[in-house]
């Protein structure tokens, strides 16, 4: 499926989806509440078969967070980027680690560095930082007492 | 002709002539003790250097070449370093067993040395059950390894020791069966008898193919028994860091290290004795002329030559092959080596009964 077909199919799947047009791949912005059901549909619906989640990125926009899921299909080779806007104070989104196993590590990474809470995650712990680490290093307001770059 | 036999006899005669027999025996034991310790040190130095050089050349390297001419003093320097290192004992270790283990291993190695014939008439103790004695005592070293692994209070050591136990217990069988096949052919357990029976040719040539097979099985089994690669599961550095001697340092580690090399020497010496005639020169049947030419080469040279050839073979294995996994190791023994050596023993018995050997 190309970008346009994918867009039309998605419109049948979601209620009034928002698309970002500038990007290279079709980007759909969703509400975090619908993410779990939507993800399952993307994974298993005939024609989508987005079975390969290759990147999970959390972005701190100072006012809110965005979690970006890059999805592709090993069957049809089409791409889909899903973005979910999260609240700055309570960044929570449903985990997809039961749908794409790779998400388990990627979500732990996002939790560790950005502080995004993935509800339902089987093992949401610090991944890179020590368990007693305070703060979320990749957030824009994080102040590192020892910053080699800004020395 | 100056030979080791003459030297030992003259020393024996002089001691017995000067002192009363009891003192003479005591003094002789002392001399033998010093000789064994000296031999240990010498073997350690030579074999470690040999291993390093062999591995280096196989790995397209030069190997140690800085200390002494051509790196010959490298092991001396290493020994000095190890001697000066602190011998750590881990906190949770069973201190008595932990310190006892390396000594046990080295004492066992020393004990097996007793019936080995180094040259014509040069043997510490020509016991009439020599071969049985060797296979009995050599299995004691696993106790030292198990002790070291258990007492270290380290999981890697424990795993290594358990592997070593399973390994030695099973490979003892095929090593023993290979030894028995030669015992069947000679009809004696005494080392000097076994050597004497090879006066008209070594058993590996006289015993047809079954003797060759049991020689190969023996080499494989002793490689496993001495924990050498590809059977070095007890120390398997990529899996268990250093296995049973992970926690040892300084001289205690050096003893393990030394025992490993002395064990290689001993098992190769035994293989040389059983299959390649020990100190017996290469004799072919009744070719008197040929045999006399061969006799000009001293018997001690024959013995060391054969032993070091086998040691080189075992080193060659180590630097070529990957390591087996523990279940494959046991598979190899129980599914391949043991049935083979049993069938082989039957064949050898048939040969011995029918007198088909040369």
């Amino acid at each position, binding site marked *: 499926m190309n970008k346009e077909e994918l867009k039309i199919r998605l419109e049948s799947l979601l209620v009034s989806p928002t698309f970002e047009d*500038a*990007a*290279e*791949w079709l980007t759909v912005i969703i509400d975090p509440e619908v993410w779990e059901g939507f993800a399952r549909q993307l994974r298993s619906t005939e024609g989508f078969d987005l*079975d*390969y989640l*290759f*990147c999970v*990125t959390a*972005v*701190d926009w100072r006012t809110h967070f965005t979690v*970006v899921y*890059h999805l592709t299909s*090993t069957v049809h*080779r089409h791409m889909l980027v899903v973005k979910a806007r999260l609240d700055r104070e309570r960044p929570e989104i449903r985990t997809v680690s039961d749908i*794409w*196993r*790779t998400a*388990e*590590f*990627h979500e732990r*990474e996002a939790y560790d*560095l950005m502080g995004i809470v993935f509800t339902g995650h089987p093992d949401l712990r*610090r*991944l*890179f*930082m*020590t*368990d007693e680490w305070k703060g979320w*290093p*990749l957030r824009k307001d994080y102040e590192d007492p020892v910053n080699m*770059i*800004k020395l | 002709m100056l030979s080791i036999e003459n030297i030992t006899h003259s020393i024996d005669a002089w001691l017995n002539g000067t002192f009363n027999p009891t003192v003479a025996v005591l003094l002789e034991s002392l001399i033998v003790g010093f000789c064994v310790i000296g031999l240990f040190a010498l073997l350690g130095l030579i074999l470690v250097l040999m291993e390093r050089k062999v*591995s280096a050349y*196989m*790995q*397209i*390297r030069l190997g140690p070449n800085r200390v002494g001419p051509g790196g010959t003093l490298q092991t001396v320097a290493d020994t000095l370093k190890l001697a000066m290192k602190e011998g750590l004992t881990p906190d949770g270790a069973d201190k008595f067993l932990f310190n006892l283990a390396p000594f046990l291993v080295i004492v066992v190695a020393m004990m097996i040395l007793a019936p080995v014939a180094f040259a014509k008439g040069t043997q510490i103790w020509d016991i009439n059950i020599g071969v049985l004695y060797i296979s009995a005592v050599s299995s004691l070293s696993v106790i030292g390894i198990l002790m070291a692994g258990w007492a270290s209070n380290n*999981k*890697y050591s424990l*795993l290594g020791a358990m*592997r070593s136990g399973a390994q030695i217990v099973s490979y003892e069988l095929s090593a023993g069966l290979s030894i028995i096949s030669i015992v069947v052919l000679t009809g004696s357990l005494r080392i000097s008898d076994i050597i004497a029976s090879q006066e008209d040719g070594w058993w590996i040539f006289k015993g047809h193919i079954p003797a060759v097979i049991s020689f190969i099985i023996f080499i494989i089994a002793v490689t496993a028994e001495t924990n050498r690669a*590809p059977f070095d*599961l007890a120390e*398997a*550095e*990529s*899996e*268990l*860091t250093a296995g049973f001697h992970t926690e040892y340092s300084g001289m205690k580690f050096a003893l393990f290290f030394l025992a490993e090399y002395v064990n290689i020497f001993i098992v190769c010496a035994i293989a040389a004795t059983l299959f390649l005639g020990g100190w017996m020169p290469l004799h072919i049947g009744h070719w008197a002329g040929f045999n006399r030419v061969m006799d000009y080469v001293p018997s001690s040279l024959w013995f060391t030559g054969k032993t070091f050839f086998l040691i080189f073979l075992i080193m060659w294995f180590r*630097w*070529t*092959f*990957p*390591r*087996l*996994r*523990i*279940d*494959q190791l046991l598979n190899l023994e129980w599914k391949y080596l043991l049935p083979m050596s049993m069938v082989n023993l039957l064949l050898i018995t048939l040969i011995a009964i029918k007198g088909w050997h040369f």
Partner: protein
Amino acid sequence: MIQEVGTTEQGDLVVNLGPQHPSTHGVLHLVVTLNGETIKKVEPHLGYIHRSIEKMCESLSYRQFIYVTSRMDYLSSHINNHGCALCVEKGMQIEVPPRAKAIRVLMGELTRLASHQLWWGAMAMDIGALTPFFHAFREREAINDIMEETCGARLTMNYMVPGGVMADLHPNFQKRVKEFINFFRGKLHEYDELVTGNIIFKSRMEGIGYLSPEDAVSYGCTGPTARGSGVSCDIRKLYPYEVYGELQFEEVTATGGDCFARYMVRMQEMRQSISIIEQLIDNIPEGQFQAKTKAVLKLPKGEFYSRVETARGEFGVYIISEGGTTPYRIKFRSPGFSNLSALDHMARGHKIGDLVAIMGTLDLVIPDIDR
């Protein structure tokens, strides 16, 4: 994080494999739950070499951040840099001269060869054969010398700049690469004699660490790890960048899904890389090696994602730009990170020795995982 656990409630032995361990090739820490010798669970603990490169890059300009990525997967540093440069070029819409494209691909394939050679030696060492390591380094040394001559460094070359490469090829380059290819072709069969055909090696590899194609995709495995399971995922073939689209080469896949399949995929990839280099080495177009770019690069506001195929799998660079001289957020999708997540799945039920073999075939580079 590190628990002082000797045994679990079920009486299983818990062993800390690493962070200092001969076979984890760096500072990977695996907490292994064992039942005797059999693995019940493997839990990776990461972060011993975490430098937060993503955060660092947020304060580096688009020229500067490329060199940092060499420090991630240091064995295919050139390809990492390539991904970054591609992403910047995508954002700036810089047209790279054809000569630079060819040089980049050539260097990338040489890097892949060097990386696979090191992997081969290190993996043989993991399963107990020490000699192959030195043999592999002899060939790798020849590549490093070529790199040193043209790029100026042996490991972290930083040869890539947005818009091309930093310097033109050294006059000796073509001659030396041809010499190397001849030399290496002669040595490649020794690899097979020494390791591939060896019965001990085969029995250590076959049937170990099975990863089904579905699992490979679900765990996000890429590179030879996924291709060993029969998943076609070579970015060079699927989404060709630079001159890969014009080259004749095969995407190597195997169907076994076990350690031996992954091993064979990498061995075949070496041959494919040689073939790519041979196709290119005499056909490097003349012209500039670098496009004219501004001294200060400013990416337009937007999001840019580029994917390249490193020696370990798919490396992704995701730049979010706010229009400034530094990235607003940068995300590196490193292949080792996803491949590692499948380790637990693959290792369960096997022995400790197999765990080491599986890690060897995953070809983990720890800075790549930790970033």
